């Protein structure tokens, strides 16, 4: 009896392991062909000039080019700047909207749908829409500002001083509805009992938010922040449509620059695709995003310890 029991457990374990392997195999297979293989495919070209047809081995030339490529490093700086602006506005806005729309008031679902709508619109379409909104001479935004008494139209998309504001507005508009839904979902998990206890203790709305809602939302907040950070670093589609990285490269972010390298600059049609160099820049960009994510996770863990 004593000998039989462990053997039965072992048999069950083996069965479970086989089941797990079988169930995981489709996902692992997909991961291999859709993620690992493309990465290896791309990585093998980092030492080549490759235009899609011809590959020429160039040794370390792509590395030395990258180090001296001021346009790339400037675009990395712009990416950090853009990510900072986006995060500073999008997280508080999503949180505030989530708190407001989590009230038991009629019509909140309509607002939720409206705010979520930009998330399902293609970013290239939204980029196109915002070119009309931000147009200097006949744009809707300048029209409104002039009606409110502004003297001269603001060149939102053609001035290096204003273009980052325009790009940030588009990014926040396009993304905050998604994060708002995450927050609302997180709030729905918080027990009503906790709020009732706070009410009995005499806590007002602000105290309830900072002492109960926010701490209990912290697991969701951490996930949302991580998604927002990685998302902000990878954004480029809407910027490509809205400004093409201009004026004067002021809104050129690193993935837009990499796109231009790999596919050739679509605007001037003067450069040939540089898949090898673009692959190297992609690896560097992935490392940069990876470092930022790890740094964020460490900070988040330390904050947990403090809290």
């Amino acid at each position, binding site marked *: 009896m004593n000998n039989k029991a462990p053997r039965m457990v072992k048999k069950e374990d083996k*069965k479970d392991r*086989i*089941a797990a392997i*079988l*169930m995981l*195999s*489709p996902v692992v*297979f*997909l991961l291999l*062909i859709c993620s690992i293989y493309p990465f290896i495919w791309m990585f093998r070209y980092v030492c080549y*000039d490759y*235009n*899609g*047809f*011809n590959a*020429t*081995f*160039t040794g370390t*030339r792509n590395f030395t*080019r*990258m180090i*001296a*490529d*001021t*346009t*790339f490093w400037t675009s990395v700086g712009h990416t950090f700047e853009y990510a900072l602006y986006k995060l500073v506005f999008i997280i508080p806005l999503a949180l505030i909207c989530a708190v407001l729309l989590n009230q038991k008031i009629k019509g909140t679902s309509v607002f939720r749908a409206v705010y979520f709508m930009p998330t399902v619109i293609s970013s290239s379409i939204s980029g196109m829409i915002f*070119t009309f909104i931000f*147009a*200097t*001479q*006949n744009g809707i935004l300048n029209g409104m500002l002039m009606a409110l008494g502004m003297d001269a*139209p603001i*060149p939102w*998309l*053609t001035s*290096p001083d204003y273009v980052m504001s325009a790009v940030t507005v588009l990014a926040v508009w396009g993304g905050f509805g998604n994060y708002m839904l995450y927050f609302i979902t997180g709030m729905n998990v918080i027990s009503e009992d906790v709020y009732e206890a706070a009410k009995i203790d005499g806590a007002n709305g602000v105290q309830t938010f900072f002492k109960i809602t926010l701490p209990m939302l912290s697991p969701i907040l951490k996930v949302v922040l991580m998604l927002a950070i990685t998302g902000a670093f990878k954004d480029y589609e809407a910027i490509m449509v809205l400004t*093409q990285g*201009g*004026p*004067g*490269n*002021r809104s050129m972010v690193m993935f837009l620059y990499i796109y231009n390298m790999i*596919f*050739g*600059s679509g*605007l*001037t*049609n*003067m*450069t*040939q*695709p*540089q898949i090898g*160099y673009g692959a190297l820049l992609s690896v560097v960009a992935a490392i940069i995003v990876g470092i930022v994510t790890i740094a964020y996770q460490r900070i988040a863990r330390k904050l947990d310890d403090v809290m």
Partner: protein
Amino acid sequence: MKRAAKMLLLAGIILSLFVGPVFAGGSSESSSSDGKIVIEVWSEDRHDMEYVESKVAEYNATNTDNIQINLTIISDNFRNMLQMAYSGGTAPDVAGINAIPINMLADTGIAMPLNDFIAESPEYQKVNDPYNQIYEGTNAKNGNIYWIPTGMRSGVRVIYNKDLLEQCGYTEIPKTLEGYIDMAKDITEQGNSRFYGIGFTNASPFERLLEMVAEMSGIYYYDYVNGRFDFSGYKPVIELGRRFFTENIAYPDQQGVDNMRALFSVGMFALWSNASQEAAVFTEQIPVQGFEWGVAELPTLTGEVTGALETTPSKGWGIISSTDHPEEAWKVIEFFQSEDFLKGYLEAGYCLPSTDYMASVIDSSKTGRLADFALKPYETVYPKPPAVNLSGDDYRTVFWNAVMGYVDIDTAINDLNTRYNEALDADVASGSATRLVIKDYDPLHPDQGTPEYLTE
């Protein structure tokens, strides 16, 4: 045991669902169900689709060579799609390859040389005049011809609002760039924010006026005699071009091409510049409303034309080397480049005729406003400078940044000279490019020199 079998079955189904589509696709069939030989044809042109499709349908119904053309239009990412299809064994038999750089056709063997086919086809020679349409580095390399253009896109012209010009006291376009800018300034001042002198798009704006003014003034970015890039000649053109913005002459926004065309078409600014595609744009796509528009030659620095203006050979067909039916593929090219096909094509105004023969055959009164863009004696096709692996922005982007005042002109020129020549030297050393030298280069006839391709 039963449970394990069930799980195995379930996992197998899931796996097959995922794996199935990956390996699905199948090989391309080269015969149709009625026994005809199917020739797959890829084109990246959507604007002429209606005409081409109707002629293809006619050909499929009437040809006696037992050929069926299967036409596919791929207007986005054509180059990459063709490359992927070639690598995957699913490339078409014939493709419109005029926009693909020659090094991607010749050095890779993707396109088949057409020399032998052309030599044996007197009708093709009569209509297409192939031996006078060989542009080294564009459609031919080392004696091999890969495609012959069936039409031309003109060089850049000034397109102007006649009514607005007359209203402001002008009847013609000045010959010098300075005079042109002065006129644009005067119109903007008279417009007082109701209309402007000139408008620029954000899509390659340097190419649409100032670069071509420089070309006609004998300034080019590649020094053919010495086989080096040299951007120093552009300084006076950029200095003058800056006035458009420092003196608030230009319409205060640079939007996409179609947006700016739409603004021109409603009279928001008087001067616009682009090539012959604008003929169809301003008559069909975005018709000009309520005013007469004219077409004029570009100004130059001194008022004299001292350099050739670049034209673009278009609509050239090539045979992809992986085809199983090269003879039939050539017959299809003969059809696309036949007198019957081209007469309708050119009379529909899709492009300008590239041969004297076709120019004499077509009824130019049917081509509409395209006639205003007829080729000038100083227009030609430049030998293609080497395509280099460049880090950072290309010269058109950098020079427009200089025009806008984002970067100093001398700094921009030094930066471009350094980056382009470093890239050229490195590419020549690695073997991914060759240095083009034309010792007897003439800026007014750049296509008539003797090209040499050096490996050092």
